[in-house]
């Protein structure tokens, strides 16, 4: 019988020799070209990293192809990044150019370093989850196709650009702190199947799951009822109770949030904030979404100072200008009405016309 609680494999055993020998002794790095980095150690050793864009949802053929490349050029070593790119770890400088040539020939995108867009961190969508308001992989593909040049170049954008996508507001893609967040949202209250509620759900848990206390017991039906004005369609109740259907093809769609970041560089990390409350779910290529994202990216690229990330740009020019310059209409939806709303209100006369 298999053993339990073995834990993950030992990372040390899978590090390339140049890393083992220079572990903790790296001195600096250089960008040789987009997607190609050189790390130099105190001893003078060098490691070359080639970063390749990945759809993240891959089949075995692709993985084996990557292994072939790593075997051919990297002594069998590669890694994946926190944004799900592939990094081929080249110890021998002579292998860099041939590898790049082969990648080019194979059509595999090299890039994502420095002032570029990296891969879109994303989630399951219609591929595998039960609460999505949209697909994830499809939108990511459409957007990355559209922004492809910004991945393979690092001199077109003022700063790095991190886009994330989550198919529902659970936000598994951690879109809440991204330069641009693409977020699937529901827009109608759950539709309750009263015949199922008492069978498949624990009523007190369902009631407790609602952040706005919109759910009340409905003893007559041995079920629950929802005060619709209070419901903001989070789907929490559905996660607790499959009899409260939240998916609604007529109204589900996408919201765009902008200006978040994670790093502490210069400015503190911050949340992405609502730019576009709703875009329709136009599969298979979501033209409204790609267009909206491109518009935001290009407005920023044109207007920001060098080194200014999306949120830094917005905080310099002000949100009133952001809406002006992108041409995005401002609506009541943009104004927070949840727990921490008050600190987001403009409590000063200092604003721009």
């Amino acid at each position, binding site marked *: 019988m298999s053993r339990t609680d073995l834990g993950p494999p030992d990372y040390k055993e899978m590090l390339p020799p140049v890393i083992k020998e220079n572990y903790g002794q790296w*001195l600096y790095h250089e960008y040789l070209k987009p997607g190609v980095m050189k790390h130099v150690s105190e001893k003078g050793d060098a490691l070359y990293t080639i970063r390749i864009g990945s759809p*993240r949802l891959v089949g075995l053929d692709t993985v084996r192809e990557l292994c072939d490349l790593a075997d051919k050029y990297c002594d069998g070593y590669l*890694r994946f990044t926190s944004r799900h790119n592939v990094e081929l770890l080249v110890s021998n400088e002579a292998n860099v150019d041939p590898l790049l040539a082969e990648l080019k020939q194979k059509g595999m995108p090299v890039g994502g370093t420095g002032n570029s867009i990296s891969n879109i961190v994303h989630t399951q969508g219609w591929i595998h989850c039960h*609460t999505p308001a949209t697909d994830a992989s499809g939108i990511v593909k459409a957007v990355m196709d559209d922004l492809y040049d910004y991945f393979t170049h690092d001199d077109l954008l003022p700063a790095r650009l991190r886009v994330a996508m989550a198919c529902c507001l659970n936000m598994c893609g951690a879109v809440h702190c991204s330069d641009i967040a693409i977020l699937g949202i529901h827009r109608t209250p759950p539709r309750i199947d009263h015949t199922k509620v008492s069978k498949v759900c624990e009523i007190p848990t369902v009631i407790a799951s609602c952040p706005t206390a919109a759910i009340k017991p409905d003893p007559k039906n041995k079920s629950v009822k929802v005060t619709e004005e209070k419901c903001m369609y989070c789907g929490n109740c559905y996660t607790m109770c499959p009899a409260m259907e939240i998916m609604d093809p007529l109204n589900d769609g996408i919201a765009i949030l902008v200006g978040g970041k994670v790093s502490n560089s*210069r400015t503190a990390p911050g949340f992405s904030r609502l730019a576009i409350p709703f875009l329709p779910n136009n599969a298979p290529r979501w033209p409204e979404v790609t267009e909206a994202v491109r518009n935001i990216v290009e407005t920023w690229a044109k207007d920001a100072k060098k080194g200014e990330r999306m949120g830094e740009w917005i905080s310099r020019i002000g949100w009133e200008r952001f809406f002006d310059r992108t041409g995005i209409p401002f609506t009541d939806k943009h104004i927070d009405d949840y727990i921490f709303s008050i600190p987001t209100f403009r409590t000063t006369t200092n604003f721009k016309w």
Partner: protein
Amino acid sequence: MTERKTPMLDELEKGPWPSFVTDLKRAAEKNDSVKDLIAQLEQSYEEKKGHWKHGGIVGVRGYGAGVIGRYSDEPEKYPNIAEFHTLRINSPAGWFYDTKTLRNVCDMWEEHGSGLLNLHGTTGDIILLGTKTNELQPTFDAFSDAGFDLGGSGSGLRSPSACCGPARCEWACYDTLDVCDNLTHEYQDEMHRPMWPYKFKFKFSGCPNDCVASIARSDLSVIGTWRDTLRINQEEIKNYANSGMDIQGRVCEKCPTKALTFNSETKELFVKAEDCTRCMHCINVLPKAVRPGKEKGATLMIGGKSTILRSAFLSWVIVPFMPLEAPYTELKDLIARIWEWWDEHGKTRERIGELIYRLGMGNFLRAVDLPPVPQMVKEPRANPYIFWQADEVIKADEATK
């Protein structure tokens, strides 16, 4: 098994970015469940609606986590994905692989599942995407024999993850990979047998650039930092200056604390150490010339999470500086105290950050025995609603005695 035209998905094979549809189609050639998956996905694209049902409780022997159950809501139409569960395989710290291992993963998954995977899930696991209930145990057995184990799911510890840190980065202020690996092994039980109010995540970043987004995406964020002064190599500063880098404009003026002065005559850069907040900016722009200090460790932060329920939180400072050396006893002791308090007071689906919000930092700090320091706050409270402990006030009856 349903063979059908997929005109919508076909559209997603166009364009320069690698296509998951192409990968699906290639996988479908070898695996019928992927054929059904494609067909069901095409239907989702047409209808704008998911077709998965709530996961029931499935898993492997001895584990309460690591498997996400999934069932098609049209099992008659798509019998090969009537069951289509994922396994979360705990990845090695830093996501470094050799091809031998990775090929082995492929072979095992070819035998036991759909042949589709996510490299990686957003928490960092290898996601084996789609297999049947009766394949779960054999899949696990095979992976276990190959030295792998399941990751987390449900109301337990989730698979910790770490930036590449000292393995490939000059800025790592502690050994992210080792801490991640060490703690993951230490807390196998907490990960595999969920028994808490809700999920709990660790993420380890070697410096404030936070390349694993720990501050946003983990309940306990461990971020490398240093206590002394950053180190400046004046020779390299000169090289940067001579190569045309606008050090005054791109570095000094963007330093958030205005801690840097550049002497454009001598081409030297100076830092006022006590003003620097270690934001990394100057280091990021001048990687050859500026580096973190020598007295290294980590800042511990708590509460990071996504939207549910009280909206998203970013982690906040609870320990400004902790040296991190194996066996990480101080860290583990603190974690034990945190979990104990959360376990005792947390409501179902209440993450640690939300519990602290509900009960207050004062109560949290007393419970886990951490001293309050100004580094914990951006600013002190503005309201006068201060709680006083019994031993801080004079009881009326005592006084009259």
